[in-house]
């Protein structure tokens, strides 16, 4: 909270500096703007930037490294017995100290050492804040003084300010790259730790998935096994079911909308399909678990087939419905991009409309449709909420759509929701699964992109 106030103070200071800079430079030329190199506002911005930018950078860096540094100092001040604790217990102790220091309820009754440490923690934090405030404000004032000294009517303020803006724009566009780098690094880092405990071969080709880590050596069923094949198979099964729904329906509706529907029908149906795309996936999950799952089960009972209440079929069907608009809107675009002259040529040869669509329009649009389907597959593999709510948890290796299967995303969620210990294979397995998920979807996206680019037919 205090840091927010400090940042607000610095921002106010910048506004103030802007006004002053503007006024000073106008005073220097006696109000005659023609004497200035840049517009007066740029001089204001120049002063404000020199004043605020270094100070804000210092505060940002300070805030992002403060917790680790304070924690290190805190640990070094603890009794040696406490320092020798294993990492997990030490973390618990630290969070207890923090809770006591901030006045929250802690998990155990505090002993004297913890109370002393909590006091030290509070002390360290207030010292750190004071130091940050002093250094930040000093930087702001220093920048202000420097800017004042440099402020001359012939100062080229606009190029300087525009240079800063240019760099800011560049940094903004690099953030997307940094996000990807962050994803790859964090997944890789935790996955490597996982593969130190479980061999990659066992993970990728093992047939048995029961992610537990033993608390005691002699525990029954304590040896967890991390063979992910049943999970990949389950993901594949649900994806196949979803595509069996989404591709024909999405494609047929796209064809109908592009080739047959009157503008009036289009204007009604297109938004309806877009609503299907806008519904949150958690709603689909609720629908699958509450309506479709029991309905399929009841239907199966009448036919004498045993359908699990969390069957792959229910999750796959609903996921297929969710993906329909995805397939249809992308295919709609490519079908519309096929030149009218091709259709006219087919009609001139006496083809009916459906023959034109099947023999001329679809082959010409095939690259785009294949791309759309690949993107839809990648979407289905990465979809989480529907399967978390409607598919099972048990890793069955089966191709029977009436049984319960589990998927990569379900396992990630089950492994990571709740208590996590970052030294157990159970938690780290989620990151290994995440890495597989990321790589597979990335490959699908790139293949889709290549297919669309390479097999595009160039007309006229």
């Amino acid at each position, binding site marked *: 909270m205090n840091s927010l106030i400090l940042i607000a103070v610095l921002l106010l200071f910048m506004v103030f500096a802007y006004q002053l800079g503007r006024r000073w430079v106008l005073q220097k030329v006696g109000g005659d703007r023609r004497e200035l190199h840049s517009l007066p506002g740029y001089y204001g911005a120049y002063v404000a930037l020199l004043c605020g930018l270094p100070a804000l950078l210092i505060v940002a860096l300070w805030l992002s490294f403060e*917790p680790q540094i304070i924690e290190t100092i805190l640990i070094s001040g603890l009794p040696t017995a406490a320092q020798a604790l294993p990492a997990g217990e030490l973390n618990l102790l630290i969070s207890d100290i923090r809770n006591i220091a901030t006045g929250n309820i802690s998990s155990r009754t505090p002993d004297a050492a913890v109370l002393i440490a909590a006091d030290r923690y509070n002390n360290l934090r207030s010292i750190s804040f004071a130091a940050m405030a002093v250094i930040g404000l000093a930087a702001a004032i220093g920048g202000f003084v420097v800017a004042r000294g440099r402020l001359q009517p012939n100062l080229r303020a606009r190029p300087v300010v525009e240079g800063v803006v240019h760099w800011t724009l560049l940094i903004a*566009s690099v953030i*997307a790259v940094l996000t990807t780098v962050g994803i790859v690094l964090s997944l890789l880092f935790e996955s490597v730790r996982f593969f130190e405990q479980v061999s990659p071969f066992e993970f990728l080709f093992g047939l048995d998935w029961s992610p537990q880590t033993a608390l005691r050596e002699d525990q029954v069923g304590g040896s967890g096994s991390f063979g992910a094949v049943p999970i990949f198979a389950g993901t594949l099964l649900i994806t196949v079911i979803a595509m069996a729904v989404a591709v024909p329906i999405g494609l047929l509706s796209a064809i*109908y909308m592009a080739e047959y529907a009157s503008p009036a029908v289009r204007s009604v149906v297109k938004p309806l399909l877009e609503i299907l795309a*806008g519904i949150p996936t958690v709603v689909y999950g609720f629908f699958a678990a509450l*309506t479709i799952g029991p309905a399929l089960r009841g239907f199966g009972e009448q036919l004498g087939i045993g359908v699990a209440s969390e069957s792959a079929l229910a999750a796959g069907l609903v996921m297929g419905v969710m993906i329909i608009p995805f397939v249809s809107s992308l295919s709609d675009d490519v079908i519309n991009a096929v030149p009218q002259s091709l259709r006219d040529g087919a009609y001139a040869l006496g083809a009916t409309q459906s023959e034109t669509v099947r023999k001329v329009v679809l082959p010409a649009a095939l690259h785009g449709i294949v791309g759309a389907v690949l993107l839809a597959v990648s979407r289905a*593999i*990465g979809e989480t909420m529907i399967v978390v709510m409607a598919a099972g948890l048990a890793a069955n290796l089966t191709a029977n759509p009436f049984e319960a299967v589990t998927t990569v995303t379900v396992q*990630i969620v089950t492994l990571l929701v709740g208590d996590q210990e970052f030294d157990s294979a159970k938690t780290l397995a*989620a990151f290994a699964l995440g890495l597989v998920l990321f790589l597979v979807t990335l490959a699908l996206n790139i293949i889709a992109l290549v297919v669309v680019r390479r097999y595009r037919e160039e007309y006229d």
Partner: protein
Amino acid sequence: MTELTAIPVLQRKPDLSKAQLRRRYRAEARFRLYGVAAILFAVGILALLLGSIISTGFSAFMQTEIALDVQLDPAIIDPDGARDPAVLAGASYRKIVRTGLAELFPDVSGRKAKRDLNRLISRGADLELRDRVVADPSIIGTTVTIWIKSSADIDSLNKGQIPRDVVEADRRVKDNQIAWFDTLDADDRVRRSFNTTLFTAGDSREPEQAGIWGAAVGSFLTLIVTLALSFPVGVMAAVYLEAFAPKNRWTDLIEVNINNLAAVPSIVFGLLGLAVFLNFFGLPRSAPIVGGTVLALMTLPTIIIAGRAALNAVPPSIREAALAMGASPLQAITHHVLPLAMPGILTGTIIGMARALGETAPLLMIGMVAFIVDIPRTFTDPATVLPVQVFLWADAPERAFVEKTSAAILVLLAFLILMNLAAVILRKKFERRW
């Protein structure tokens, strides 16, 4: 390959018979029918989905209440008569409420029967009475008639969701409770009123005390963080890529990367948030600031892509005219091109925000899935969001949570419709075609 061999035959002697023509026309009609069927299927599922949610959800907006005559005995509430708010708030109102209920059924005796009787009313009923007494201490010593919430099971019974004709062991309400309820109903002591708790309370284990306000505030705080981070960064990145970026390999890399990022599964962003923001930077779990940052990274590609499309749609002549008048490239963009592209950028942003509002999976990873009763007040308080609340309630074992879940979904959908409507209006009103 079969078609290839068939072609020479066709070329030699095309089949122009009426039968062949009829067959082709039938194929045409069939194909058309497939298209209609596909659309009807999709629209039908949409109708089924919305219909099932509305039909289970609308009843949650009403709550059954029972009238009790309670005697506010000063000996229990305020023994020393000082009207000290702390004493008033600490008194045992549960006893008063239960006495009031027992007086209506004097012939109920035995521990088990009394327990069944007390289950007619909500466990939070004493808190409602407490709030009323603390607000107006002058009613102490009088006997007042108050409407208190029934328990969730009685509420379901009153709404006809629990069938009366099944065996007693198979339903959640016992025969004696039904009899008592019917007596109360006959005495006009039962009514249904608008369920304000749903819109003012946080989460609760008791369905009748649970509300979505906590989750709505959490969603609001999270979306503010998302908007504050993703909108400026997205617009700046779009401006850079569209107007200033040199055409080289680096720019290509950034472009491909942004398009790929748009297709990364949302749960992977959650893993990123968990590994980087929680483990590395040590930010608090379950906090809107972390959730908002993760969603901002997820929304960023959407805003950049929409922003670039909007900037690209502004004709180059406008920029060239500004440059010709002596504006610097940056002035030409910020003073002329960007304002004209703003409606398109805002439309894209609203759509991105709507997606962020409905997103659940990444937030599960960073712990926004906890059971949180308090209404969050700052960006670092533990909070949950509407879709996660839906997920939590959908998992709850009590039957009464089914209608609450549907009601929460209806509220969520209402917000989404509002946002999308705003986007459509913005597009219709300000979109210019050159």
